[in-house]
């Protein structure tokens, strides 16, 4: 699996993603936001961080970067695109995913482990999980509160495009388990075609025992599996 990790000014999880891709046998390369062309890549990863300092709105300025035209084309052609945290915000700003991520309802940056329920194990990003599986993964964001028009939100439920939800230990999507006020505890969604996933939590930070959890590895193993059966 050859993956491109797009680096924007202010990205700070690009290296973590790069390592995560390598850990599952992927071949990762950094692509600077001013470069053009994504030919030859099997997947594109948009890292977390604070592109352009999150000034104006998280992801708003980054989505104007030259490389984003290629990312949109790549996605439209069915190429897998994974956006994590700031990457998710950029995907929404770029219109590759519906809705927007606004300020956490608690108005504070939220940095701690959360439990996620894998609602869909049939996407190319989650095939390594079991449907309904509860995983433990860190979050670290100030603007992770998923927002959209009613119709959009209902459509997401209707079309089962909510891939990850914040839940408690036992897998219940209770309010206490919602760290940012996201509608219906949304932590991650896919586009209609299922090839673009955006999520606020950081699976790339849950890849080794020494870091407290290996539950995030599934996301990358799923991709590796479907993109290069040889890899795993």
């Amino acid at each position, binding site marked *: 699996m050859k993956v491109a990790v797009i680096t924007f000014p202010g990205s700070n999880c690009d290296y973590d993603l790069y390592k995560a891709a390598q850990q599952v046998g992927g071949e990762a390369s950094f692509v600077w936001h001013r470069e053009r062309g994504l030919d030859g890549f099997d997947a594109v990863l948009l890292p977390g961080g604070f592109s352009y300092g999150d000034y104006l709105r998280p992801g708003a*300025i980054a989505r104007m970067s030259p490389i984003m035209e290629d990312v949109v084309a790549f996605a439209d052609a069915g190429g897998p695109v994974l956006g994590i945290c700031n990457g998710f915000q950029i995907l929404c700003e770029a219109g590759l995913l519906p809705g927007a991520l606004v300020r956490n309802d608690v*108005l504070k940056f939220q940095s701690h482990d959360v439990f996620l329920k894998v609602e869909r194990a049939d996407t190319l990003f989650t095939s390594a999980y079991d449907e309904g599986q509860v995983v433990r993964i860190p979050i670290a964001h100030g603007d992770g*509160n998923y927002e959209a028009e009613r119709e959009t939100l209902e459509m997401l439920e209707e079309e089962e495009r909510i891939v990850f939800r914040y839940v408690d230990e036992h897998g219940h999507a209770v309010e206490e388990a919602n760290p940012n006020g996201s509608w219906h505890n949304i932590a991650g969604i896919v586009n209609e075609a299922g090839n673009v996933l955006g999520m606020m939590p950081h699976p790339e930070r849950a890849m080794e025992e020494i870091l407290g959890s290996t539950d995030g590895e599934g996301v990358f193993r799923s991709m590796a599996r479907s993109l290069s059966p040889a890899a795993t």
Partner: protein
Amino acid sequence: MTQYLIEVRVKPRPGLLDPQGKAIHHALNSLGWTGVEDVRVGKTIYIDIEAESADEARTSVEEMCRKLLANPVTEDYEVLVVETAEGAAS
């Protein structure tokens, strides 16, 4: 070319949540300002721009809003030409 000062007022769309406004409202009430009925927080972007005319200035700022300054999903915006180098304008 004249310089114009344009004001872009970006507001959270009615109906959508405004965590900041909510928090301030709560804080004001608990500080004893019970008369406060509602609080909303928006941002205002002040732009100094060179243009041939106020209209030209307005038009390009409106395009900036569509392209970058406001997020149609969550925000409404309003563009005001406040003043020119020569002084107040429309």
